[in-house]
């Protein structure tokens, strides 16, 4: 088949055939209640060699079938994004109405894309409305893109926010090129793969049908952890001279690509930075003290603001500029940390890393898509320490929560690198110990609270405290003190010493009316001032995506009731300990003199909880909930 003929075929294929009424009904019955479905989503990458370099173009087609009567008023808006790296070449869109009239889209509008974390970049969004939508109409969007940097090819996902009837990825490349692919996510068995070789070109095709809508739960990790997708990349190719060019065949290739980003920065330490480093190291007794001071200075003084236009998204800025500006993105913070530490005589290394939103590793897929973050690494007392400048209260020696368990690519020097795995701090490091002492009075329940936050609990609280002023801090802290009911009244509070990132204590006094009940000669009080896990049952077996937790940790809640004079405990509920392979709890009531002490203990050993563990998770809750409904009663002595 000639190339021209092939393109013609594609064009003809692009005209959708209206599904028959029977087909539409069968879609509706397969996906009841859905307002729209993706009839077809297909992308075809064509990779060629031009001037000895890979050239990547892609054609994408999306076809939506509208089922809802509200289609036009609510679902007409559609769009796509593009950027300097993912350059838009051609685009067109049209509606095929239910009575087979074709109406072209003319109202395309291109604007800058907004991101919460990035202040400025060159990502654009083109949006439009499909005209004349009604049940049975089909909206078609076709785009052609040029991938300016073939190191940055995007993975292909089979699922969308709406059901997909047919999903297809094709990759066509020359015979002298090697393309590697990996199927990632759950349910990859349904993906059909075929390989075709024709006229010196190879084509990989991946297809899936009737893919259910992938609507994430709030506590799910990034969709890349579970949605079925194909990661593919150019491993190597033979150029016009017959030389084999390694492209992304191993982490070596990636490292050499990254080294190029560092070549122009941090040639010297300027006087301003030198002065700061000197003053920070003056009274530090040893390398650890120096490193602590330098890290703390960057955490406190360099604010996170990201300008990421084009290559600015990859190349760190010179540390001296970052020092003057007092702001930067993660790469800039890696740059200033690394240079300051080196200036202080501590070997420090630029480090690339993916945050936990990315499931990839350098060893499996040595690609830029593995990472989205930069930090600085040092080695102290035979231990690697990962310093993330973007978290102002990250504890020295502990990784920031977002990079636990992730592979780090550490540039040891201009020719060597190490791939290290960031450790997960043990649950004993991250503890929340919350103690409430209460008295039953005529004016309601009165009490004192002491909450000790250790490890990440402290880190996260201090990150929050920094952004609220004296006027607002009570609004921020009240929910952390609140217990019993919304009638909780915080009478006073105190924030303990904020000098230590690894520990912070909150104390407070409170009144809580209408919680403990005095009826006749009896008091009733439910000592479960916290029911943290109420409604935390996992939607099982429906849910198939994992649950993400921020860190391993332990939480202990102690409630101490001072038994009022003249009263005796007439009902003390039973305690219970229950643990299974996934997690567990201990709840215990104890009468000690004139005090009743109730303790709840929970722990977590997971960053991700997988569907196979959901039944066990819920089993713990089944055992826990009855204990929430137990009330202590006290009777006045006759």
């Amino acid at each position: 088949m000639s190339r021209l003929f092939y393109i013609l075929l594609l064009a003809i294929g692009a005209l959708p055939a209206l599904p028959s009424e029977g087909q539409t009904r069968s879609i509706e019955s397969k996906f009841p209640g859905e307002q729209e479905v993706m009839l077809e989503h297909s992308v075809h990458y064509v990779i060629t060699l031009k001037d000895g370099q890979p050239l990547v173009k892609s054609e994408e087609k999306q076809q939506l079938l509208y089922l809802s009567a509200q289609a036009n008023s609510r679902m007409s808006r559609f769009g796509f994004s593009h950027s300097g790296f993912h350059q838009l070449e051609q685009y067109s869109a049209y509606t095929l109405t239910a009575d087979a009239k074709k109406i072209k889209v003319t109202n395309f509008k291109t604007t800058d894309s907004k991101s919460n974390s990035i202040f400025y970049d060159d990502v654009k969004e083109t949006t439009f409305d499909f005209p004349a939508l009604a049940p049975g109409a089909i909206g078609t969007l076709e785009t052609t893109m040029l991938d300016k940097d073939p190191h940055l090819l995007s993975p292909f996902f089979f699922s969308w926010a709406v059901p997909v009837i047919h999903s297809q990825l094709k990759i066509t490349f020359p015979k002298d090129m090697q393309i590697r692919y990996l199927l990632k996510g759950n349910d990859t068995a349904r993906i059909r793969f075929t390989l075709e070789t024709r006229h010196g070109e190879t084509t990989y095709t991946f297809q899936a049908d009737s893919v259910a809508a992938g609507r994430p739960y709030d506590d799910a990790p990034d969709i890349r952890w579970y949605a079925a997708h194909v990661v593919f990349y150019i491993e190597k190719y033979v150029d016009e001279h017959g030389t084999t060019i390694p492209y992304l065949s191993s982490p070596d290739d990636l490292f050499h690509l990254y080294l190029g980003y560092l070549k122009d920065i941090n040639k010297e330490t300027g006087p301003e930075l030198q002065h700061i480093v000197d003053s920070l190291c003056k009274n530090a007794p040893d390398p650890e003290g120096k490193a602590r001071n330098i890290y703390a200075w960057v955490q406190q003084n360099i604010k996170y603001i990201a300008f990421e236009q084009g290559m600015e998204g990859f190349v760190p800025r010179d540390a001296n500029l970052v020092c003057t500006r007092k702001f930067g993105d993660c790469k800039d913070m890696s740059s200033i940390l690394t240079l300051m530490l080196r200036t202080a005589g501590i070997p420090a290394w630029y480090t690339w890393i993916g945050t936990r939103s990315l499931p990839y590793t350098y060893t499996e897929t040595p690609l830029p898509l593995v990472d989205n973050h930069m930090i600085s690494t040092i080695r102290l007392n035979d231990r690697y320490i990962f310093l993330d400048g973007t978290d102002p209260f990250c504890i020295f020696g502990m990784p920031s929560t977002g990079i636990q368990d992730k592979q780090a690519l550490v540039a040891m020097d201009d020719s060597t690198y190490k791939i290290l795995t960031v450790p997960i701090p043990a649950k004993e490091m991250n503890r929340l110990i919350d103690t409430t002492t209460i008295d039953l009075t005529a004016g309601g329940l009165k009490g004192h609270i002491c909450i000790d936050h250790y490890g990440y609990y402290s880190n996260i609280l201090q990150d929050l405290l920094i952004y609220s002023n004296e006027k607002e801090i009570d609004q921020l802290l009240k929910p952390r003190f609140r217990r019993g009911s919304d009638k909780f009244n915080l009478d006073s509070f105190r924030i303990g010493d904020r000098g230590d990132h690894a520990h912070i204590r909150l104390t407070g006094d409170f009144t809580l009316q209408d919680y403990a009940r005095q009826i006749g000669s009896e008091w009733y009080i439910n000592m479960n001032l916290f029911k943290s896990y109420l409604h935390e049952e996992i939607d099982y077996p429906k849910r198939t995506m994992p649950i993400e937790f921020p860190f391993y940790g332990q939480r202990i809640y102690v409630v101490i009731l001072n038994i009022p004079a003249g009263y005796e405990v007439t009902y003390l509920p039973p305690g219970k300990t229950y643990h299974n392979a996934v997690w567990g709890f201990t709840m215990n009531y104890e009468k000690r003199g004139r005090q009743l002490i109730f303790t709840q203990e929970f722990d977590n050993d997971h960053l991700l909880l997988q569907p196979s563990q959901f039944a066990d998770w819920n089993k713990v809750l089944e055992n826990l909930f009855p204990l929430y409904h137990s009330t202590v009663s006290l009777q006045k002595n006759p």
Partner: protein
Amino acid sequence: MKNNLIFLSALLLGLDAIAQKPAIIHEQWTEKPALHPINDPLKKESAVILLDNRRVEFIDEGADKVGEYRSFHRIVHLNDDQGIESFNKVYLGYTDSTDIIDMRARAVLPNGVIMEVRKENMKDYQDEDGSKYKIFALEGLEKGAEVEYFYTIRRKPDYFGRETIQGKFPILDARLQILCPSRLIFQLKGYNSDIRIDTDTSHAGTTAYNIRLKDIPGAEEEKYAAYDANLKRIEYRLSYNKANSNGSARINTWNLLAQRIHSNYEVFTEKDLNRIGDLIEANGWQKLPDARQKIIAVENYLKKQFTSRNDIDMQNASNIEWMIKNKIASTYGIVRLYAGIFQKLGVGNQIVLTCNRNELVIDRSFENWNNTSDILFYFPGTGKYLAPTLPTFRYPWINPYWGAEDAFYCQTTTIGNYTTAIAAIRNVPLEDVTKSYHRTDVSLQLDPASDTVIAKVRETLAGYLSIGYRAAYTLSNPDDRRTMLKEMARSTTNSERIITSNVENADFESYTDDKPFVMEATIHSEGLLENAGRNLLLKIGGVIGKQEEMYQEKPRQFPLQVAFPHTLERFVDFIIPAGYKVKNPDDLVESHEYPAGGNPVLGFVSEYKIEGDTLRVHILETYKQTAYPLADYDNFKKVINAAADFTKVVLVLEKK
């Protein structure tokens, strides 16, 4: 704010005089700035705005041309990290037709170092709605630093203005100056603030209106408050042009606006009317028996079949023929289409321009055209309203924040062959309190075998209260619908174990027959019962769901308001299990009612009776008004908290 409803460029006519070339005032800053000392009480603030200086300058620029230049100058002292984060990134908006004359920004650091933002670091940014910004970051900031920036932009002259001065952070010195050729007479009015206008005519040919406000406190968000509407602001308008032949006649009046609205929205070509006629014919609307049914049919058709949003603004989206073919319309286009259809059908109507009462007012005596931000149709024949730009609302239900306040009515009158329009400023009444209710019917029965309660719950939402639920349910996917039902179950019974469920009247068409949106379910709940040895505790208060509370509030700044008049009524039946008695039923009784003009307008009343083995509880919570003055704050709070208190009522079931 860009006003989409009125075409202001037409205003220029007749205002321009002979060419003069007065240069504009260029904003300056001190070359060697010193940091400002901050008083102790202000050190608690994250940031203090030391200077907020605004100037709007109109100048003659050649024949028939007036230029407008707006300058804004701020100096901000930063006390803490939140202050730094609030001011280290700056977005300065400008519109398509404007030119940036000046734009400078700098940081003054505690050590005296000055860091000015370089021009190349000011980036262009275009928002989704097409608004353009210069965005930049201030360099070198630390605690104790000051940020200073100013800009002057040229913009299309707008003879109405609104400057909201107050905001989150305190302002020590706020100034507004309107400068114009002296033939133009502006009027200024302060809202939520007494202002003194100093009019300076000492410079020949120019008038300067100066206002200065000092020590404006930062305003905090409050529950049940119209935050924006209560901020201190200054509005201005051009009222006279002495160069006109009749220079003492007030210009830019509401009547003039009425004529403009009429000619923009209600005048059609023969061709347009024919197209509209075809559309009417095709749908058979002319055959419907009365105005009400015609209104309903037209609205249902346009809201289902057409897409119309504020950000759809291309030219052809207001062309009648194009709109009918593509079923995409700009806000202007869709209103014209409604107007054309009603005209052709002979359904008498008036266009009403209103605003959101959370933000603005339409002031009869101070005609600020820019405050007419939203649009309605009023039908004198039925006395009801239609919101053409809100796809999930149906006649006669409108956004309640667009009513219960004065609005502008465009009333057309025909004299012979000549049709024109006059204005009326009148209230837009909301639908009666009896039509918006949330009724909860719950019956609770103990299942003694399993320590659970079987709850039958029926939630009925009518009128304004049904709007959010109906839209959320009808427009969502199956997963979200399931979540909605689960949340309803959880809210009343503290459990998600739904045995059966049912939803009624979720479609938008149900509005017009006043059919309420209904969700009902039978739920197994362990969460309502507690075990206290030989006694059982029934957390009966929980069945009314989580309530807003005002238990621990700061001193109140602003008066109170609710979105619309409504009642919340609950009927709870509890079948007392054999062998038990309720020890404390009187805990169910609460009564807080507050009258205005003899009628209770605000209240929470709960009562009970025992009939055989059934305990019947009745709760009625009433909000008959939308606005409550500050003097009613304590009463309002008592009612809100009475409902929140009720959620904590626990009945003790004692074994007989």
